[in-house]
């Protein structure tokens, strides 16, 4: 009887060890690149590759606007179908702001996953640069 109890007590920690309880406070193993892992551990800005990519996209879009303005100055103004006189910078702004609301509306009304609103946002972008 005593041996049974002793053995089961020994099995307890062994099981816990196997379940990973001993890993607390130890450095995690390298598990390769992940879009959602912290990039600079312990840095207060809390960058992840995913959010960095988001900002790279925004700044790249602004840079493209700058390049286009340099090559073809004037901003390509026109009267869009919303009744607004827009330049290409305005169209980018309307696209991005509209997309933010498309994603928020989908999240609030439907939820994840976000493939449908992504498609809608791209379609809205195409519409903005084509007609607005």
């Amino acid at each position, binding site marked *: 009887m005593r041996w049974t109890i002793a053995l089961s007590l020994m099995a307890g920690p062994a099981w816990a060890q196997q379940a990973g309880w001993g890993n607390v406070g130890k450095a995690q193993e390298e598990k390769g690149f992940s879009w959602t892992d912290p990039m600079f551990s312990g840095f207060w800005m*809390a*960058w992840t590759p995913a*959010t960095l990519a988001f900002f790279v996209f925004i700044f790249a879009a602004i840079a493209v606007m700058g390049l286009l303005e340099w090559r073809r100055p004037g901003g390509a103004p026109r009267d869009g179908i919303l009744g607004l006189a827009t330049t290409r910078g305005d169209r980018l702004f309307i696209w991005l702001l509209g997309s933010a609301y498309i994603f928020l509306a989908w999240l609030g009304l439907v939820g994840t996953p976000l493939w449908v609103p992504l498609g809608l946002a791209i379609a809205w972008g195409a519409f903005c640069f084509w007609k607005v």
Partner: protein
Amino acid sequence: MKTVNQRAWFFVLPVLLLVAFNALVPLMTVVNYSVQETFGDNLFFWHGVGWFEDVLRSERFHAALGRQLLFTFLILIIEVPLGVAIALAMPRKGFWVPVCLVLMALPLLIPWNVVGAMWNIFTLPDIGLAGYTLNEVLGINYNMTQSPLAAWITIIVMDVWHWTSLVVLLAYAGLISIPDAYYQAAKIDGASNWSVFRYIQLPKMKRVLTIAILLRFMDSFNIYTEVFVLTGGGPGNSTTLLSIDLVKTALGQFDLGPAAAMSLIYFLVTLLVSWVFYTVMTKDEP
């Protein structure tokens, strides 16, 4: 080909750097926080868009947003007409002009937290001048620490007291820039006071009023200090505006993720309303 000197852009550089540090870096950080969970110590765990989903569906957020919209709506429909009326009543020349201008500018010079504290002491039912007078002298049951309606009336009156001057000063600037010739022409045509206002003064004030409404919208939509000092968001949650709720979430509960998601939604609402308003108001201008 004409050479255009673009060197002036370099003078914008200091401002760009300043804005980068006081607006862009914090905004990027908020975006990073909004998709992660933290328990402090700068350790972050990915949470995806879950916080946005939670915030968009939370009763508490809807209620705070509703109160915020109501507050801003009331502020605008009171302050803008009142400001224009006071500006119209102000003298255009003579001794009283500087006196009126200084009197009008006084509330704008008082720091927000002082305004809140002043109105708190002023309206407390047992010791405040207004609170005591209303309750004990006039016999009106007024207690902004207990009744939500009284608290709402108090924060609206406080904001009107503090910020109508801004509308007045802007509208006044618009009014005095109208040349006398317009008024003389109106007089010759025998125009009534209302026609003068409707067809001369109002169109000429459109630009400054656009700015005034935009500033009042953004300021009242982001109001925090005055209401926080005056009522602390109470009684209950009745004056917990969006910014007060946000600070409670971020600093009171230290829920940085939900607070970040909330502030981004808040930011997007402000951005959309300001953009729509500005676009509509300046649509017919070349």
